[in-house]
């Protein structure tokens, strides 16, 4: 069996995860693991799972955003970020996955490949560039 890309595998697994029975799903996963081992592509597993999650979210109209900040977010801040993202992405539901990075000053929001960089570092870099022109 030829090896398919992670994207192709994830797209083909999606309908199965939504409509297939438990037995069917387990059978497919066994074949998938066997093929990944055979083609020495086990390192792709994480990517396949991540893509599967992305496609499932797309189908349900859910957007996941990874928010990194130097301190825990308050309820007000969480609401502000959610409202901000509602203006940027089309989604029925926005899920914020927060993480704390004590060394960072400010906020970053990652939605798929889009990064909103609101850190102090990026603002200072921008100011430096402006002062140098």
């Amino acid at each position: 069996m030829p090896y398919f890309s992670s994207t192709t595998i994830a797209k083909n697994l999606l309908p199965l995860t939504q409509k297939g029975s438990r037995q069917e799903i387990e059978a497919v996963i066994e074949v998938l693991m066997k093929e990944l081992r055979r083609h020495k592509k086990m390192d792709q597993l994480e990517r396949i799972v991540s893509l599967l999650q992305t496609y499932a979210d797309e189908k349900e109209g859910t957007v996941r955003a990874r928010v990194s900040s130097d301190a825990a977010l308050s309820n007000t801040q969480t609401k502000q970020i959610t409202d901000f993202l509602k203006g940027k992405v089309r989604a029925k539901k926005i899920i914020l996955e927060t993480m704390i990075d004590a060394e960072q000053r400010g906020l970053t929001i990652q939605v798929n490949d889009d990064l909103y960089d609101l850190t102090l570092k990026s603002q200072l870099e921008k100011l430096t560039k402006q002062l140098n022109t």
Partner: protein
Amino acid sequence: MDNYLLQSLKEKTAEFKRDFAVQKTGRVVQVMDGVVKVQGLSEVMNSEMVEFENGEVGMVLNLEEDEVGVILFGEAQDIKEGQKVVQTGRVLSLPVGDDLLGRIIDPLGRPLDEGKAIKTKVYYPIEKNAPGVMAREGVHQSLQTGIKAIDAMVPIGRGQRELIIGDRQTGKTAIAIDTIINQKDQDVICIYVSIGQKESKVARLVENLRECGAMDYTIVVVAGASQGAAYSYIAPYAGCAIGEYFMDQGKDVLIIYDDLSKHAVAYRQMSLILRRPPGREAYPGDVFYLHSRLLERAAKLNKAHGGGSITALPIIETQAGDSSAYIPTNVISITDGQIYLESDLFYRGHRPAINAGLSVSRVGGSAQTKAVKKVSGRLRIDLAQFRELEAFTQFGSDLDNKTREQIERGQRATLLLRQKQYSPLSMEQEALVLYALSNGFLDDVEKEKIGEFEQGLLRFAQSKKGEKAMSLLSSEKDWTKEVVKAVEKLINDYKKSVI
């Protein structure tokens, strides 16, 4: 002063807006030799520049379903799996302008010569479509190399592509450098692109150009042997982009690509790492396109498009004289002629070691001044006949008069066409010397003294006694009765002075 500084700072900070733009990002998944695989970058374009976390820059070359292949301009040591990669939204381009004249830069436009920072606001893309058919006109203006053998038998015109091909150490770069030196006061901007060459060689070359005053109108683009394949890959395109800026201003440009064999090897290396299918000699299938799209950008534009030109002198190194190998045949079929250098001729003392039989210029006489054209017409035929008969020279007295004459003529022509490095001749000097040869003025000069005679004649021509004839030749650029009379008098006067 303090108030001015304060005021200036206030103005700049007042303009500052605390906003942000969304960055398109990806993540490093694999680092190989000069190539990085990135996941994400969902909207990246082909040939777009991307930035890594350590500040290094790369260019997207492979767009695959799962990941993007990026060639890296810089060190891969600080790049780790999982690091962020950001799209810039710009295709690869470099700064161009008059500021580059006299400078040594890398293919990204960064100075390598410890001079001032290059301040230019104009950027040209490295990859660009060649001028179309309707924007061009025929090559009709001569580009003098200052090398007798080339200007007489393989003349080059502005807007032509003429390949210089030969084994290692046959004088390929020497021809290119002499051509650059001869462009002094000719209104031609020169660009020397060094691809994968030793940096000591480039340093020596720059020093020679500086001594001859050629750096004032020359730009040197260096992708050294110690730099990655990515630099070697984009170096010729970068040089061409710089040339296009000047061509668009209506100026004439000469670009030397030294050499395209190393360019093909660098591209092969990157393609194999990117897992592109290998073809003949393991080169990727589009290796012809690699060079054709580069060399097609050399052109002579018509007046409606500014009338500028780019003349390209690509260099190809052959192995054991094999010009039928893959890359040499590719480039021969793209260019408008080739100058073929042979090791055999080189070691026999014939320098430049040009094989007149295999060398050709498809532009030919339309790129030659009339003065040189009229006196070099028989030269190729004489040399061709001499080559056929050369083996009989050992028979000496057993040959008939006609054969002996042909051999004599060929030997004299061969000796006369020898020329020292860094000694390019002007059009008038070449015409004078070739006139003397083709009209029998050298028939009574001993063969061993041809070189000495030539040097003496040129010195005599430069003195007050030769001023009138040379000035006439320079202004008329043709053999009118007046010019012929003056030149013949000059040669005869010189001959009398040496007897």
